[in-house]
């Protein structure tokens, strides 16, 4: 027995082994050189070298759209305003059939050749030749793009379509002299980019890390002050969060649970975050082709049965707020009308009124307390959401509980993304969570919520408007919006759209998604913050150029 008691060899051996290998390892990792900003936005195990700004946004590395190539105008989604970028001016001509853009003088490509309007026309004509590159669908409304002179380019429209401006403004421009010889621009990896953006020089590219140096010929003199961007590869959100917490990363756009405790409290003087509510809005979609959800009273009753305060608390760690009846996020502050929002009381948690509305709609409670249709079948629904999207799953559970309380049986059903998306697109659901579609104006947002033109028959895959709701009132306002270039009158039409949405409740808004942004000010200053909200702080907001505003504002300490 004494022999047994002597030792725990396995444990000892392991610790000795590890300790000997670890000999000489130092605890502190030296920080990156001054001026090198470490960014974590994409989650990958190893990097593939691809800087093609035209092909699907997912394949190219993050800086391709965020800092290498630039659009004609940057849309600042926090201030809801356009910032002239490669184009300095624009005007509508010929009864709004032609959009004329003036390009910026004195911009050079990173190889030293001058940037001209011809590059702009070339880029758009490339999209026409290769429809796979036209991810904003600009050739759905354009008929012709040509240069007038070296600084002027004319976009001719098939019909008057003012919202088309937003899509043209956001297009990244590529150099004609580089891309005209590319045989297949769709599958071109563009390993050594020639661009106008602040960061163009690939200094290092290895499978776990790459570095982009600043563009020596950047058109904003003296900018960027950041010397280089560095991108370490982290395969998962957990791992990226750890890197952030342990100061391996300066700027990130992850979801971090309990951020005050996990991140800020570790270094309160340096670790900051700002989550403005400018992401897409999350909705509970009710299939309006199926009874009883074709009845506006039932949709409003479902909405009133949801305790949104609890939902935001449980699903999102209070990072968001309950949505109001317009469904608009803070990205639309310039358009949002609070008096219209206040008139929509059906987003308030009110069990008594929900019950009354359901009774009124003919869905009476049976003896067991469960509501039934007129033919006696009890109401029983599944709320669809995506497996692994824990915020959605928790939100759906809160909703299910609310429905149970008003006598409607409801359960949460999770699917893999593809399976969920297929069902939702085909309209094969009763209730499902889903996102909204965003643009600089509420036009895109409301079009995909209630335009008859976006309603596809059941069974046919629909990109948006999964709940299949068409509103004649909205159609009218949306059509007028397409023709209206005057901001004041656009605002009135947006009010009209909000009023229609509040009245008809085509979908049930839950909460606006935050735009995730965490950063450390230990090595860089100038990040957007609540006190200095000059741009959207999130590296995830890259499609309309927000990141360019941040990258050109940062200063190394």
């Amino acid at each position, binding site marked *: 027995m004494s022999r047994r008691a002597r030792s*725990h*060899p*396995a444990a000892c051996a392991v610790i000795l082994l590890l300790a000997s290998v670890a000999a000489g390892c130092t605890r502190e990792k*030296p920080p990156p050189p001054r001026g090198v900003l470490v960014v974590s936005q994409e989650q990958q195990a190893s990097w593939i070298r691809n800087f093609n700004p035209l092909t*699907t946004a997912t394949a190219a590395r993050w800086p391709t759209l965020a800092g290498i190539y630039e659009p004609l105008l940057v849309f600042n989604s926090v201030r809801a305003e356009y910032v002239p970028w490669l184009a300095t001016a624009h005007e509508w001509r010929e009864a709004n059939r032609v959009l004329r853009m003036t390009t910026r003088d004195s911009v050079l490509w990173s190889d030293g050749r001058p940037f001209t309007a011809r590059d702009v026309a070339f880029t758009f004509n490339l999209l026409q030749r290769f429809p*796979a590159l036209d991810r904003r669908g600009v050739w759905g409304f354009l008929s012709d793009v040509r240069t007038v002179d070296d600084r002027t380019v004319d976009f001719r429209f098939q019909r008057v379509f003012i919202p088309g401006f937003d899509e043209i403004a956001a297009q990244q421009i590529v150099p004609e002299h580089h891309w005209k010889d590319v045989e297949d621009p769709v599958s071109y990896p563009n390993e050594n980019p020639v661009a106008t953006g602040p960061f163009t020089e690939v200094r290092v590219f290895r499978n776990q890390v790459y570095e982009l140096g600043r563009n020596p010929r950047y058109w904003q003199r003296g900018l960027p002050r950041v010397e280089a961007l560095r991108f*370490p590869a982290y*395969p998962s959100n957990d791992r990226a969060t750890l*890197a952030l917490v342990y100061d391996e990363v300066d700027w990130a756009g992850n979801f971090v649970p309990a951020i005050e405790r996990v991140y800020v409290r570790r270094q309160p003087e340096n670790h900051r975050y700002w989550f403005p509510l400018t992401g897409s809005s999350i909705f509970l979609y009710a299939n309006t082709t199926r009874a009883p959800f074709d009845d506006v009273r039932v949709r409003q009753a479902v909405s009133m049965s949801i305790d949104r305060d609890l939902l935001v608390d449980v699903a999102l760690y209070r990072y968001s707020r309950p949505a109001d009846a317009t469904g608009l996020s803070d990205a639309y502050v310039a358009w949002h009308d609070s008096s219209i929002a206040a008139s929509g009381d059906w987003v308030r948690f009110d069990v008594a009124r929900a019950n009354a509305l359901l009774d009124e709609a003919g869905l009476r409670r049976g003896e067991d307390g469960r509501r039934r249709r007129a033919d006696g079948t009890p109401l029983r629904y599944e709320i669809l959401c995506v497996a692994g999207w824990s915020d959605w799953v928790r939100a759906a559970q809160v909703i299910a509980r609310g429905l149970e309380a008003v006598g409607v049986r409801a359960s949460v059903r999770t699917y893999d993304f593809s399976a969920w998306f297929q069902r939702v697109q085909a309209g094969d659901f009763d209730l499902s969570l889903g996102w909204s579609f965003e643009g600089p104006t509420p036009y895109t947002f409301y079009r995909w919520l209630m335009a008859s033109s976006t309603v596809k028959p059941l069974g046919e895959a629909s990109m948006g408007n999964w709940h299949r709701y068409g509103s004649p009132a909205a159609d009218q306002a949306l059509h007028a919006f397409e023709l209206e270039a005057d901001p004041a009158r656009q605002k009135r039409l947006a009010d009209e759209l909000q009023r229609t949405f509040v009245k008809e409740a085509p979908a049930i808004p839950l909460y606006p998604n935050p735009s995730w942004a965490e950063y450390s000010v230990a090595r860089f200053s100038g990040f957007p913050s609540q006190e200095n909200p000059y741009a959207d702080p999130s590296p995830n907001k890259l499609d309309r150029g927000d990141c360019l505003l941040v990258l050109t504002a940062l200063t190394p300490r």
Partner: protein
Amino acid sequence: MTYILRRLGFYLLSAWVALTINFLLPRLMPGDPATALFARFRGQLAPEAMQALRETFGLTQAPLLTQYLTSLRHVLTGDLGISVAYFPSPVSTVIGTGLVWTVLLAGSAVAISFTIGTLLGLVAAWWRRGWVDTWLPSALVFLGSFPYFWLAMVALFVFGFTLGWFPLGHAYADDVVPAFSTAFVTDVVRHAALPVATMVLATLGGWLLSMRNTTIAVLGSDYVNLARAKGLSPARVALRYAARNALLPSVTGLGMALGFVLGGSLLTEIVFSYPGQGYLLVQAVRNQDYPLMQGIFLVITLAVLAANFLVDLAYLWLDPRIRESAT
């Protein structure tokens, strides 16, 4: 020779069956790659982009049989196609980014674990009821029965974060230039130490037990008694007589383990942010990247078959009975 040819024929047939299943299974999943790409964007992509994506990937509506024949032809000519998730990189390039590291990480873990485990098993059986035999199997089985993910997380937390002895992830430090230099090799070893150690810990018990149990059985057999009676040295009896015969089941296990090395060690790679095949495979499945999935499965299939073939050859050497019947 006929034995080897017969085995080869069998492996060719298995390869074909595996290829066919590789082709069919992913296509039974709902959705398509363009749909899957939307998942990553959660609505940040305009609906118009869907059409562009479909165009990009050239999603084909050709009949399944045509697709099948094309895919077989491509595999035979070594053309694995273009990855969807990592568009427009060829599948071979994508697989190439992780393969070396996977072989290094999982390969060395299997080699170390097999060698140490088998030796310890032999020791445990030879000195039965000694302290190795009493403590080690239970301790290792105890460790091995923890969920691996948890074990790796704890190791990373204790030795990486709290004690700071090991780096927190990656195959080598960001500021070290890959080259055949002492600095680089030390760095790689330092980065591999923790993941390899956890993998070895988790699998050691299996090798030990399998070797110990067969050795005990073999030690009781007549030919071992005979060898002892002849007065051969204990080392000779242990290694040439007992171990050689007891090794057979373990070698079969080794063949399997080596084959699966190329599949990557998903959990290890995720916990330690180690580049490799496992993560690629998950990405491929998530994005419904059929070409990448098929490419990785092909590599795994071929590796398993090749490893098994090597095991067959090892049997020829280890087991005279097979050698006799084969000639």
